[in-house]
């Protein structure tokens, strides 16, 4: 068998079954919300509630799937703040569940849910919701799957057309590398990059693409070993990690329950009459507990969607990424457009970052307020939904590995503690001592 060499494998990061954040996709060009179908796989690992998937609109309306820890729910909220909650069924912890839904703006919503039964069985989707409501949700502009410490997400697909149950069934159970392009099947306009080569970071203008499936970074795929997942078995997920995103350290700060997800916020109070930059008040570190091997980066990007914090006043005129390196040095360049967050919420990571040091970097933003002739009350600028997008050469090992920095540092012999080696909170046994204890001459 010919072997694929140096394929550009991509992933939105592996985090030991605990993805924490996820891609933000914009659909300005083709709209969303008129009979489009979305498929997503999710697994809850605890009874802590989590939001799974969000559609937001330019008008401010929201549609999102969530769990309260015990049941799946579809929540519809219009731009006046009115909302409806539709419970969709109970959650089985640690079981992968496929959710597929098709919704209409002010029309009907169909939701199918299926749960894997064991690693060898396909999911069987069943209709759990079919309602018609009068909510005017408007054209959706953003779709955003969300991982948390309590749930994992995988195989996310979106179709800008409504699929039949039979078609959904095939797509939910199909893991073809180049999208689901079986004869006669609709083609996803975006198939999860979490399991196939090519991802957001390989796409130059993310919001400008009509089809997200055809921008993969390599041209020859001859061996299934080069895929994150091979075969066509969704049950595979039960035993293999799902690719996911890096997530911020300190999960307690990750607010999932309600929008807006404020991570980095500038509170200037008022703006002077000269253009001024304000730092976001919080910087976050990302971490990965997954199995990304030590391989060369191809590209990487920092995803942080800019928003306003709802307060009245003059908004920021520009949003820029701001980093601190492992030494605490500020890294910013407001003259280089690759660091600007405005267009699609994606900024390049400074090239000095490496896979060994990426966990020690901090990610934030700064906000520019245009000068005004008189001092003006400023609206709070925020960025939300921080994430990292990584492309690299190689493929995940499938073996849990600690990031190198987790086991680096200064460690001292502990003469009074137990005979174990503790590295930054990771406890390891002393490797194979020749003998435990032996007394000589007794």
């Amino acid at each position, binding site marked *: 068998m010919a072997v694929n060499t140096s394929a550009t494998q991509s992933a939105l990061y592996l985090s030991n079954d605990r993805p924490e954040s996820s891609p933000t996709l914009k659909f300005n060009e083709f709209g969303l919300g008129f009979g489009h179908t979305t498929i997503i796989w999710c697994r809850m690992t605890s009874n802590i509630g989590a939001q799974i998937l969000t559609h937001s609109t330019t008008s401010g309306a929201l549609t999102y799937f969530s769990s309260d820890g015990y049941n799946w729910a579809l929540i519809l909220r219009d731009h006046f703040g009115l909302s409806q909650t539709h419970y969709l069924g109970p959650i089985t912890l640690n079981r992968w569940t496929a959710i597929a839904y098709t919704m209409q703006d002010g029309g009907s919503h169909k939701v199918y849910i299926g749960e894997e039964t064991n690693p060898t069985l396909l999911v069987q989707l069943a209709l759990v919701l079919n309602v018609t409501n009068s909510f005017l949700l408007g054209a959706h502009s953003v779709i955003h799957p969300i991982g948390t410490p309590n749930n994992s997400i995988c195989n996310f697909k979106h179709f800008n057309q409504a699929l039949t149950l039979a078609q959904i069934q095939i797509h939910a159970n199909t893991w073809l590398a180049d999208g689901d392009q079986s004869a006669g099947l609709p083609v996803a306009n975006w198939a999860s990059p979490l399991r196939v080569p090519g991802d957001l970071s390989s796409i130059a203008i993310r919001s400008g693409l009509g089809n997200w499936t055809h921008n993969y970074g390599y041209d020859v795929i001859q061996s299934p070993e080069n895929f994150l997942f091979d075969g066509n078995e969704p049950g595979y997920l039960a035993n293999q990690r799902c690719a996911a995103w890096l997530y911020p350290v300190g999960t307690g700060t990750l607010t999932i329950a309600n929008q807006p997800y404020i991570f980095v916020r500038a509170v200037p109070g008022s703006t002077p009459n000269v253009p001024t930059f304000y730092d976001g008040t919080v910087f976050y570190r990302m971490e990965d507990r997954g199995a990304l091997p030590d391989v060369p980066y191809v590209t990487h990007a920092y995803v942080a969607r800019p928003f306003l914090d709802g307060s009245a006043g003059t908004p920021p005129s520009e949003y820029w990424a701001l980093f601190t390196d492992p030494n605490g040095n500020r890294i910013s360049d407001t003259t280089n457009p690759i660091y600007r967050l405005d267009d699609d919420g994606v900024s390049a990571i400074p090239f000095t970052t490496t896979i060994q*040091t990426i966990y020690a970097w901090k990610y934030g933003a700064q906000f520019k307020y245009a000068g005004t002739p008189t001092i003006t009350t400023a609206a709070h600028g925020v960025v939300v939904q921080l994430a990292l997008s990584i492309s690299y050469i190689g493929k995940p090992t499938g073996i849990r590995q600690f990031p190198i920095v987790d086991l*680096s*540092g200064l*460690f001292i012999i*502990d003469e009074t503690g137990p*005979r174990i080696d503790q590295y930054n909170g990771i406890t390891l046994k002393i490797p194979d001592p020749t003998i435990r204890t032996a007394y000589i*001459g007794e």
Partner: protein
Amino acid sequence: MPGTRDHDPLIIEEFEGWWQRGDPDSAPSNHFIQADNIQYFQSGIETRYGLRNYLSDPLPTLQILRVYNYTTQTGQTLLVLTVGGNIYHIKKSTDPIGAPILHVEEMEDFGFVAINGRAYISPFKTRLDAQGDKYQLGIKNVPLYVYNGDGTPARSAAGHPPDTTNGVMFMGAGAGGVTDVGLHFGAVVFETNSGYITAPGNYSQYTYLGNTKIRFTNIPIGPLEPDGGVSRVIRRHLVSTKVIINNNFDFQGYQYFFIPGGTVPDNTTQAWEVEYFDSDLISDASHLIDNFSVIPSGVALNTYHSRLVIVGELGLDSTFGSDATLVGLPAGITDNRSIARVSFPGEPESISKIDGLIVAPLDGHALTNVQEFRDVLYLFKSTRTFSFSDNNDEPVTWQEEVLDQGIGAPVHGIATVLDTGGVNTDFLVIADLSGLMLFNGVFALPELTFKIEDFWRGLTHNEFHKIQVTNDSLNKKIWITLPEPHRKTILHADYSDGLNPSKIKWARWIFDVNVFTIALVQFDRLLIGTPGPDVTGVEFQELL
């Protein structure tokens, strides 16, 4: 039981540790042929102690490459080098980690010595010659640094003389007074916050009238540091010639003296008056002209008779103007690998370019280490040892004696003792290619590693710069870091029964991480520094 009826029990009264020399069957019965992760106590063997975090604040996570004990005037602290060329000063294990005190992108390792509470830091890196042999030298155009120990960034040691950037200094008549009559040259020297006195600069001249004080105006001010920090100059000194009879207009061609009362006690005052006679000029300042204003980095630093000694320099090119050390070398010679620079006594940053050096035999190998022992200065190459003795004259006149042409020491191969940062007990322990050597004026044979000679001889000679030795003289233990493929292993020796080849007990301590560096803290507690596991990542099985 068949076969054991007539078996005589083997009684081991004294267990002697690990043996790896010759065929395993030849191991004496009171030795192990494998001794991993064990330690010895009075009457037995046990699993070694575990590890725990040393720092209360492990963030930002430090990928440690080198650790030194840094003895300040107020306590024992650490200097650590991390991946990326940053050096941090860790004063207490409970303190948050501050910003690095030094960043040198190319720095792979560094030499260090503490003098009067200040840290002298010399970045260096490993190179590969055409024969594939690795050697270490300082980094081109990277200077020796001095760190005051207060958290402010380290800066290049020594300093440039005053210049005329902010104008020319003038000498003229001041208030009424009495001086000798005639032409005098004057200049200024800077004194830095580390005690270094620069060469004279911003020369001026004035024909003294004899009935006035001498007024210096527009006295140059020490510049701010390149990173915007405060100036290293804390005071300035006025210097002068005696009366000049034949003026050849060469300012640097005359002898200068410190003017009594000519110390300007700050870095701001720009006018100062002095009154003196030529006979008052006693303290000579001429030698300052020959000193390095930027000292080239090397691989090892140490002290000898209150002098700073630095060996293994690559050098400075014309970037540093008259300080260049690579100018005029014969064709094909690109570094000063056999030169040791020696400072004036008590002035570690004052190193004469003319006679503040000693030259080891030019055999193509670089100097690797330097150590004082029993009043003698020893210079080491990888397989050679030379001695020099202070003859109370300039270092360039010190006589060389070739002590050993088969035994040497790598850059970290001389054992440090406890947490003092020093190496002297009543002997030195030196890691030579042939084994761990005891040195008490001569190298004692056989080597301390006699019992594990096969293991030691299997270490890659080209990687001996990764060996670091530390000696816990309180508990009579030695630890040694090892090169690949034993990077996760440190050798442990227990010499509580005697520091000799037969009584020393060896073991291997193996970790899940690469141990790049070791030190002793709190007198005798072993500290290991690691950049983490292999770069390819390691699968770990958590115990808890």
